C-alpha cells in the first residue's frame, strides 16, 4: 500500500514535470529531501507572485498571499534547522525536474489573463499541493533519518494539507 502510494506520488511528480527519468524519490537522503522541499516551497511562492501580478480577483490575492506567508515561514524554519545541523541541502534529479516543470508552467500561465488565469492558477495549486503532499507523506517522511528534520516535515505537511483544502475551495470559487 505504502509502496503503491510512493510510486503514485513519484509518477505524479514525474508526469507533472514531464521528466523522462524514473528515479526513485524514496531513495533520496535527508539533505536531498530538504533540497526538494525547499525548491517546492520556492516554486509555490513564485506561482503566488505571478498570481498577484496577473489576477484581479481578491480571493486569489488572499490565497496567494497566504501561500507566500506560509511557505516563507516553512523555509525560514528549514534554513534555521539546516544551519543548526550545519548541513547544506543537496541538489538532485527531483529538485531539477520540479524546477523544469515550474519554468514551463510559469511561461504558460503568464500568457493567461482574467478568469482563464484564475482557473489555471487555482487548479494548479490544487494539483501541485496534492502531488507534493503525496510525495512528502509517502516517499519522504517514512525515509527521513534525522528526527528534527522529520518533525519539521510533519509540520510542513500539516500546512500543505491545509493549503490543499484551501485550493479546493478556490477551484470551486473560480469555476
Amino acid at each position, binding site marked *: 500500500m505504502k509502496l503503491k502510494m510512493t510510486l503514485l506520488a513519484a509518477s505524479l511528480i514525474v508526469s507533472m514535470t514531464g521528466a523522462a527519468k524514473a528515479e526513485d524519490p524514496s531513495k533520496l537522503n535527508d539533505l536531498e529531501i530538504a533540497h526538494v522541499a525547499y525548491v517546492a516551497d520556492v516554486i509555490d511562492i513564485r506561482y503566488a507572485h505571478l498570481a498577484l501580478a496577473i489576477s484581479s480577483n481578491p480571493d486569489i490575492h*488572499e490565497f496567494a498571499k*497566504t501561500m507566500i506567508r506560509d511557505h516563507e515561514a516553512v523555509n525560514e524554519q528549514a534554513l534555521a534547522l539546516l544551519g543548526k545541523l550545519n548541513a547544506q541541502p543537496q541538489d538532485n534529479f527531483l529538485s531539477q525536474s520540479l524546477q523544469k516543470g515550474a519554468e514551463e508552467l510559469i511561461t504558460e500561465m503568464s500568457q493567461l489573463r482574467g478568469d482563464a488565469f484564475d482557473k489555471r492558477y487555482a487548479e494548479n495549486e490544487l494539483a501541485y499541493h496534492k502531488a507534493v503532499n503525496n510525495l512528502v507523506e509517502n516517499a519522504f517522511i517514512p525515509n527521513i533519518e534525522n528526527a528534527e528534520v522529520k518533525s519539521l516535515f510533519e509540520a510542513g505537511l500539516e500546512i500543505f494539507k*491545509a493549503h490543499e483544502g484551501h485550493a479546493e475551495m478556490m477551484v470551486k470559487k473560480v469555476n
Partner: protein
Amino acid sequence: MHRRRFLQTSVAALAATGSSSALHAATKAPTHHDITIYRFKFVPDTLDVRVGDTITWQNKDIAPHTATANDDSWTTDELGKRQSQTLTVTAGMSGDYYCVYHPHMKAKLTIAS
C-alpha cells in the same frame, strides 16, 4: 505593538460598557482564558466568556494565523510562530470568528449575559 492593541481594547471595553450591569461584570473578577492555535485549529473552538474577561490566543504552528471576527469587528494582529496576543472581551465580540489567512479555521465566542 501587541501591548498597545491590548490597551486600546481595554479602553474600548470600558467605553462600551459604561452601564451598571457592565460595571458589575467588570468588577466581578474577570476570568482569563487561553486559546491555543495548533495544527490549524482553535483549541477550544467554542468558549463561554463574559464582558471584561481576557482571552489569550497563542499560535503553536509554524504558519502565521489570526483570530478575526467574521464581521471584521475585532481581530488579533498576525500571530507568527509562538506569538500570542491578549484581548479583553467586549459586548460586541460574541459570535463566530476565523483565521483570515486560512478561512476554513473557524471558532466561536459566546458571551454569557
